[in-house]
């Protein structure tokens, strides 16, 4: 075992094979479908937000009967309003658009780049594998948030920059999973058979290996999306999130000052609640899929 693999293994050897994971291996269960339902609801709400009968998230809906804003939650303002009498509920839904986009773009980017690198290095091995694996180790040896801080502070803070930065962070964990899975399958009989039949490398990779690598990566994608959404929130708290659009992180930060928390906790608690449910659903669904397909290694 080379020294590179040694270090790499130390970083990722967080074995998750708990007893219950073995028990539930072949069953998704109702809780999983509940999570999926929630995810579908929140994604639909985010996608359809402009056409849903929601209040304008940026309008100052001052209501003389209610006195001075912020208004507490009521039938008119489901989640209350903020200091500028903006509806927290519709702001949270519109925030979901940006947060989910960040999560999705980030993990898609990480999957494509990391997956490609991982499969190639796992399939061809040799020096490229060493270099790529070392690059993964370097990436993993940064605390992710610090790297995100570094990049976002150097570049502009557009939606795409933030998403791709977080996607960049996903490359190493995804790549390592893809590499490990590829190595596991590269010597299996069906690959050897394909090779013996004269299949070329691209065909073996795409037709034989990719379908096997995609499944564990799919489980990682859900977990990774949750991580990306949370990371975006963390960046928001450091003042480094998307500049223009409102995200969940920025909404929470907006109500997180001492005075706001004291007088109108709902401004930050409402988005926290929605964010929490979404992350919970993503984590749970990801875990279940991972257990279902019996994926051993995760590195997120």
């Amino acid at each position: 075992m080379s020294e590179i693999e040694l270090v790499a293994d130390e970083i990722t050897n967080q074995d998750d094979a708990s007893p219950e994971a073995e028990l539930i291996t072949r069953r998704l269960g109702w809780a999983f479908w509940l999570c999926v339902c929630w995810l579908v609801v929140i994604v639909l709400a985010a996608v359809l937000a402009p056409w849903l009968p929601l209040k304008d998230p940026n309008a100052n809906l001052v209501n003389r009967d209610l006195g001075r804003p912020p208004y507490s939650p009521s039938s008119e303002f489901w989640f209350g309003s903020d200091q500028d009498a903006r509806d927290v509920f519709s702001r949270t839904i519109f925030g979901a658009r940006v947060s989910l986009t960040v999560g999705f773009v980030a993990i898609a980017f990480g999957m494509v780049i990391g997956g490609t690198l991982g499969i190639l290095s796992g399939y061809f091995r040799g020096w490229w594998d060493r270099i790529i694996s070392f690059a993964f180790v370097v990436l993993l040896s940064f605390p992710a948030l610090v790297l995100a801080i570094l990049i976002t502070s150097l570049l502009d803070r557009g939606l795409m920059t933030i998403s791709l930065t977080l996607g960049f962070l996903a490359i190493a964990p995804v790549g390592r999973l893809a590499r490990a899975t590829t190595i596991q399958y590269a010597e299996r009989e069906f690959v050897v058979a394909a090779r013996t039949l004269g299949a070329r490398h691209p065909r073996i990779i795409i037709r034989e290996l990719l379908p096997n690598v995609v499944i564990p990566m799919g489980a990682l994608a859900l977990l990774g999306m949750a991580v990306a959404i949370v990371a975006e929130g963390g960046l928001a708290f450091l003042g480094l999130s998307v500049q223009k659009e409102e995200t969940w992180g920025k909404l929470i930060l907006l109500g997180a000052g001492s005075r706001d928390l004291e007088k109108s906790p709902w401004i930050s608690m409402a988005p926290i609640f929605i964010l929490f449910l979404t992350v919970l659903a993503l984590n749970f669904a990801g875990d279940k899929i991972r257990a279902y397909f019996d994926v051993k290694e995760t590195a997120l």
Partner: protein
Amino acid sequence: MNYWLQRIGMSVLLLLSVSALTFGAMNVLGDPLFNILGPVARTKDVRGTAQTDGYAYQASKGNPTAGLVVLDEADELASGQALLVSTDDELPLRTDTIAPLDSVTVEGGLVSIADTVSPGDSVVNGPEPEQLFKVAQAEQEFHLDKPLPERYARWLADFVTGDMGPQFSKTGEPPVTDLIKERLPRSVMLLVMAQILATAIAIPWSLWSASKANNIVDKLSTFSTFLIIALPNFALGVILKYVFAIKLSWFPQTFNASDPLLSQVWQMFLPALTIALPAAAVYQRLLRTDLITTLQEDFILMARSKGVSRRNVLFRHALRPSLFSFVTVFGINTGALIGGSLIAETIFRVPGLGSAVVEAVATEDFPIVLAIVMIIATAFVLVNVVVDVVYSLIDPRVRR
């Protein structure tokens, strides 16, 4: 022995690549000169580009070309005009060099440019000489006129000897090292507190959970670890602040650096808990699994049949052999906790490294960011090595 040499070499290589990456990103993606001087640095910005073959001048940003003369050979220039110098001259210049007229002397086909303009510079229609001087001075002070590898080597040599260089803003004062010296102990204290708290929560919790394995209590506690892990640390921080600092007023809302140490520890409790709780949940899951595995071993049965009480079996026999993966993850997790501590520090206004990063980013003071990134990476590597050492001490089989 060989293994350790490899391990150390690996760590050094890793730190080198991390620092090179960071340094490179800072200098290539960022603009150090602008960070130091602000808009003055822009006086030497390229406003137009010249093509290498011809001497065409391409105006951009609405910059008028009228004041610029494109030179094929050295010519007489009218005052107020600028000069585009090509590489064919004596000067080791790029073709896009544009210099103000008064710094250029032309003698019989030989073009020379005054010292204040360094090669590669470009100036459109003459900035004030003292501005140029300022730029040149700053470049000299921060070694920005040197090529990137040399600057990196210089920085590295300084860093290794404990000098992290001058700050960009506030024109270099105080040195980054002083700032780090002030902030680092607080962050370390916060992290240590968090790890102690996390361990103090996780060990009893996992023992309790494992002793009632797959019981309803155990299932509930596993479920609650899941909830805690799903709660982002900033959200947890806000909730803790709301409940314990604002509603219950048990803890102060913010940190005060001038208070005595004991009350500082008290003030750090909430930020530490913010970091510790998710970590505790991770540790609990891990320890519980390992404990359950250990409890099924023969020597546990043996101990029980000798009449050792359940409590003693748990504490004396089962706990120690179950700690191996906990030790590993404890170390690895430190990296993740550093990220969490940055956020906890901002929420509770603890002036540690986290807030230093935030401030430095806001003022684009990259030497501070670089220093902190390096400290964190070094800490990360060190912790990993320490974990390795501890691991091989506990379990000699690891030393292959």
